[in-house]
């Protein structure tokens, strides 16, 4: 597996937030959610543009990969158009052959794990020989300017992961889950066929956050309840399905939602701090990109090495969740 990442140039720091919301101190934000700064897509920058940059970075470092891609998977919830999908446009922008398969899928924080499950199936079945798995999201463009809670948490990013058939040996068994009863707790309600975007009224929620149904709404307490109910069994089942004990895992990389949630989950699951990845200080919660960003950072910083076992778990919007164990090649 070969990784590349892209972050928009523009940053939003805690001090920037403090100047807009004086009751929200920079130190308090860092202390509560473990984030100091996050990258935000500017102007007309979209996940498609960001994905293109991530892919170009991947091909620049590994030019041989461009000829090896025969399937493109694009995970985003914010495509450029209702149709066609981002994956078709990206094929053309990157100059990939017209003989490749390409599809978009709509998932958030579980998106990378689901993408790996699809990639593994495509490669193992012989349908594809080289999969380019993209995650790209720009939630910040969907957050109301007066929603300080969500603006403090989310950041934008794109990642590109190349996988070939040899890589499938390092992708373990998957545990996946879906619970649509929580759909309304993390949602952009308007803009699809069900609800138009006209006449959306401003509403207040949480601690003085403002949003309309055209923007991202997150019921933090309900999402927290879902997380602490779903994730500990998800990790336990992923270990069991892969016939591993907690001690066999070199690093646990959970979706980097926010540090408060992650620390609570770590304690619930009794995972030692040194085996639990927590680093979102300069990126924030980048939705489907947090796990590949974390894997790349952990590899670059020498925290994990070839042959190590990494348990990854994604969970969020849907609700949708999934986990697997990677043995790094």
């Amino acid at each position: 597996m070969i990784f590349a990442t892209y972050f928009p140039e523009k940053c939003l720091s805690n001090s920037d937030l403090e100047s807009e919301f004086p009751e929200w101190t920079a130190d308090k934000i860092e202390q509560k959610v473990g984030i100091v700064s996050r990258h935000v897509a500017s102007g007309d920058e979209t996940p498609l543009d960001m994905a293109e940059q991530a892919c170009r970075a991947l091909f620049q470092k590994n030019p041989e990969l461009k000829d090896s891609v025969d399937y493109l998977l694009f995970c985003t919830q914010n495509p450029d158009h209702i149709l066609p999908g981002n994956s078709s446009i990206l094929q053309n922008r990157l100059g990939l052959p017209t003989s490749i398969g390409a599809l978009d899928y709509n998932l958030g924080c579980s998106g990378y794990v689901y993408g790996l499950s699809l990639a593994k199936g495509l490669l193992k079945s012989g349908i594809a020989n080289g999969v380019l798995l993209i995650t790209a999201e720009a939630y910040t463009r969907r957050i109301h300017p007066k929603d300080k809670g969500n603006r403090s948490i989310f950041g934008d990013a794109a990642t590109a992961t190349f996988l070939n058939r040899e890589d499938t040996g390092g992708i373990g068994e998957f545990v996946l889950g879906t619970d649509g009863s929580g759909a309304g707790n993390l949602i952009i309600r308007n803009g699809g066929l069900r609800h138009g975007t006209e006449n959306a009224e401003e509403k207040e929620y949480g601690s003085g956050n403002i949003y309309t149904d055209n923007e991202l709404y997150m019921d933090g307490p309900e999402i927290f309840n879902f997380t602490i109910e779903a994730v500990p069994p998800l990790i336990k089942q992923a270990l069991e399905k892969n016939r591993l004990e907690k001690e066999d895992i070199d690093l646990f990389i959970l979706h980097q939602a926010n540090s408060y949630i992650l620390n609570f989950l770590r304690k619930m699951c009794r995972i030692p701090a040194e085996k639990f990845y927590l680093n979102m200080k300069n990126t924030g919660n980048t939705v489907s990109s947090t796990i590949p960003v974390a894997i790349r950072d952990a590899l670059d910083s020498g925290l994990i090495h070839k042959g190590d076992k990494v348990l990854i778990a994604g969970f969020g919007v849907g609700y949708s969740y999934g986990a697997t164990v990677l043995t790094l090649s």
Partner: protein
Amino acid sequence: MTNEKKIELLAELFEVDASEITPDKKLSELQWDSMNMLGLIALFKSELDIKLPAAKIRGFSTINDILEEMK
């Protein structure tokens, strides 16, 4: 759990002295924001193994409302 222990846990959550955690204290006079709501969920889960739904939390207006739920 003793009443003293409950008061101690809530004082820790709201980062105030235990003397400020009285039954009639309004939550609006404390730091009652979304992060402390998460903290309360965490407290109920870890100390009492009780799930605290968001709708119930939003109905709390005083410390007594929370103490009643901790029984």
